[in-house]
């Protein structure tokens, strides 16, 4: 039986979730990582993707577009700029996100990172099952 860790998901506007989880899957900028109890303290940025929290009550998924995660001995806090529970995501809201990113990419001077953001979003769409 794996131990549990405290998980907090906060957006700039409010605290979205605060629960005890056994496992958290984070879409890190350098690749996905899974955090369990006793993980080394880490700070990582997020890429657009799906955040999964596995707890005793089951699995919860959130679609996040960016932000960062702070992993400490006490638990995980994810600070996401935008986080939506996966069941609330619709095809149209997903398309709107991608359209936003593409529009930003078109004017962004840093072409590579903007294109990467769009690519990440497209990958996220696939991962979210659309």
């Amino acid at each position, binding site marked *: 039986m794996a131990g549990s860790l405290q998980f907090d998901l906060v957006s700039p506007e409010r*605290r979205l979730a605060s629960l005890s989880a056994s496992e958290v899957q984070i879409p890190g900028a350098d690749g996905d990582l899974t955090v369990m109890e006793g993980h080394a303290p880490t700070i990582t940025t997020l890429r657009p993707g799906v955040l999964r929290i596995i707890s005793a009550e089951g699995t919860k998924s959130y679609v996040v577009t960016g932000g960062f995660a702070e992993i400490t001995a006490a638990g995980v806090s994810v600070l996401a700029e935008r986080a939506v529970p996966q069941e609330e995501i619709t095809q149209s809201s997903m398309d709107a996100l991608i359209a936003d990113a593409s529009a930003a990419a078109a004017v962004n001077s840093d072409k590579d990172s903007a294109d990467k953001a769009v690519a990440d979003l497209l990958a996220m769409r696939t991962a979210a099952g659309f």
Partner: protein
Amino acid sequence: MPSLKDLKNKIASIKNTRKITKAMQMVSAAKLRRAQESAEAARPYAERMNAVMGGLSASAATSASAPRLLAGTGSDKVQLLVVMTSERGLCGGFNSTIVRLARAKANELIAQGKTVKILTVGKKGREQLRRDYASNMVGHVDMSEVKRVGYANAQSVARDILARFEAGECDVVTIFYNRFQSVIAQIPTAQQIIPAKFEAGSANALYDYEPSEEAILADLLPRGVATQIFTALLENGASEQGARMSAMDNATRNAGEMITKYTTIYNRSRQAAITKELIEIISGAEAL
């Protein structure tokens, strides 16, 4: 001496005004509660953000490769003042106190020979500053359509500021807003956001950084700017409602006082008219 009819009209009109100010006060009270709630809800994010940034910037500030958002451009020639005010009036000294602070700062900087640029958020501040600093105004963010301040609003303001900074249009950015303390006390505050200043947090040396400390810092700094602006906007929103509430409370009380005063005058002159009539009748009867 105003006629009885004039007085009656006046009292009726003040009563109407009192009704309006009373209603406005109650609306502000409800809005204030909401604004305080959103300010409260936004706190965990801002606190975490500041803690992480504090730790990161403490270690990065010493290195030569510190990002420009943190280290500054090395000059402070061009100062951008972001003045946040309300879209509506009737909120007591709320807008004037911010504008006064911004004006003092602007004059001080101009006296030092620096270039001052002003970006206004909210209509009221622009109206007041336009008179003296028309040539310094570089932009305006219209918030009149915004019912409830969201992070997206803060982000768009932040993007605007960051674009100006990246383009080399300004070296130092300071925001002006009212910090909410209580319904009767709002503190006008000037806060420098670029180059970023964070309270030095506890050393985060224990952390692993992914991808790297510098990359995270570069990614977080723009977000930090947006978060600070968001916090300021929320504080400002709560302050505005608080200021309006106490202003309207005062107005309601003043209207009440005026009504009592005019009612007394009205009753006195009515009494005087009756007495006069009686004297006329009596002296008429005596003359017979």
